[in-house]
């Protein structure tokens, strides 16, 4: 779904090209993609097809060589406050969780809040506890990542991604390091938050089961979108 104008989408990518300096291969070669508010999109494809690169560009972690990413119709390349935008509008969930090892679960959830709307320390702690409670981790709030199971770590990472009430969640293989039971738990959490909070959710996954849960499935190959279809029977 890339018809229409950027203003019609929450997030809109237009003809993105990205080449890494270590090679001539285009990681992305003219990718266009639109994500509507509260939409759940799954991006699938073989390893090295450019899924994660696309996610990084959509999340303003990197800049495209060509093309443009729009958020609510505004081009990201024109924004001076790109870090602020990332902090307020986007929540990231990574395959390797990327929690800070020296901080407890509660403290990890507070890390994005330094740049978010919540200001006082008391409010930050309260908000972190609420989020940890939502992901079922409040009892483990004082534990450091090393003392948590991989499933628990990903739940803490989800709570962190929600810290500043973003409009868009970007998840890169969120269940890639989890066993099937934990993977189901994490996906249940993500889809329930997507619905209850009207979040747009963009997941990069190798898993056909997870992809089939999405409203729309985008297939990529060799840096290009080869299929972009509405899933008529999500879940």
């Amino acid at each position: 779904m890339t018809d229409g104008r950027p203003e019609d989408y929450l997030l809109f990518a237009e003809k993105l090209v990205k080449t890494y300096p270590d090679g001539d291969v285009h990681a992305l070669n003219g990718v266009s993609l639109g994500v509507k508010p509260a939409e759940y999109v799954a991006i699938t494809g073989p390893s090295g097809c450019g899924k994660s690169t696309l996610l990084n560009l959509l999340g303003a972690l990197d800049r495209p060589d060509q093309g443009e990413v729009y958020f609510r119709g505004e081009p990201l390349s024109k924004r001076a406050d790109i870090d602020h935008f990332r902090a307020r509008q986007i929540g990231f969930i990574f395959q390797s969780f990327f929690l800070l090892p020296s901080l407890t679960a509660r403290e990890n959830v507070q890390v994005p809040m330094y740049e978010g709307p919540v200001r006082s320390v008391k409010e930050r702690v309260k908000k972190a506890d609420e989020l940890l409670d939502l992901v079922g981790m409040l009892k483990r709030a004082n534990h450091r990542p090393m003392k948590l199971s991989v499933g628990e770590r990903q739940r803490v990472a989800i709570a962190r991604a929600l810290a500043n009430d973003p409009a868009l969640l970007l998840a890169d293989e969120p269940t890639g390091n989890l066993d099937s039971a934990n993977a189901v738990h994490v996906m249940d959490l993500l889809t329930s938050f997507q619905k209850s909070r009207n979040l747009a959710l963009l997941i990069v996954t190798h898993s056909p089961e997870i992809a089939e849960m999405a409203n729309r499935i985008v297939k990529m190959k060799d840096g290009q979108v080869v299929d972009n279809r509405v899933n008529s029977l999500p879940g």
Partner: protein
Amino acid sequence: MYFVSFILKNLTRRPIRTALTVLGLSVAVGSMIALLGISHNVEATVAEGFERRGVDIVVMQGGVADQLSSELDEKLVERVARIEGVDPHGVDVALIQLVEIQSNKGADSKNVITIGWPASNFGFDDLEVRTGRRVQEGDVRKVMIGSTVATNLKKGVGDTIWLQTEPFEVVGTFESFSVFENGAVVMLLHESQELNPLRKGSITGFSLRVKKSLEHPDADVDAVRQRILDLKDEKTGKAIRLSAQTTKEYVKNASHVQILKAMSWMVSVIAIVIGVISMLDTMIMSVLERTQEIGILRAVGWPRSRVVKMVLVEAVILSMAAAAIGSLGAIGLTYVLTLFPQVNGFIESGIAPIVILQGFGFTVLIGIVGAVYPAVRAALLLPTEAIRHD
């Protein structure tokens, strides 16, 4: 969680490295504070000596490299006392020499400062007699010894010491506010002159008080100083090579103070360079080790400025800890140094608060300078590159 708590956790997660960095930096900073403290104490002691005695001008031979080489005819004093504006009762002469001292006849010789004063010198009033009495008019081969000399030589009232192989009876021990005087032997001027045949009738210099008006005291001092500098040799009519300095100038220009200050600063600069390199090394390692974490922080929206702030505040915290430990170490070091007889007549234990403040300032500066490059490097990391570091 406060931002500073976040930073403290970064530091405490690697306690050994943090401790070693603080320790290394504190050694550098401690050396710097100790040396600057000693030089400050020396300067302050000299200045205090003049201030307490109300001295306005110090007169010595002009063009000599150090005060101990100064040689003036003592008859000059009478002419100076008659100069307009000079308080005739406020002129005090001294012969200060470095001479050999032996605790017993035939024992190993050491060097000691002797101060020769006329019996009327107001310097005697500042010596607190601990045991015995002060030297007085009519004494022959009698001396007072400062507390440091008394301790070092284990001598007291009634004992004999040998100066330039001549025996002198100790009639009193004293404590002075001046560390130099505590490490000196005080005697009558003419006896001091007899210690060295070349110094007969000569003095090192003299200090004087000026009769100052309330309206323009500095101008009065300047006027008297100029009259002293204009003095001519009565026989030849040529100008006498004199140095007449206000006490502030004297302290500032005193060669031993200058040399000490120069050496202190030289060593301090080396310490500062070592400190900067140490901080640079620690912080660059810290940033490299945390490449991925910094990428995560950037990914969740931390701007570059916050990453820079994080690295710099870490460095400042390390520096403050090093400055605190270094200051305590410096105070301890100066105290330990005063226990050594070789130096305890020349330095005073303790560090002035202003020097400790300077030390803190320098250390924080060291921390910031050493952390600037690592901080910039951390801030320039692209989140994607940092995360790929996984």
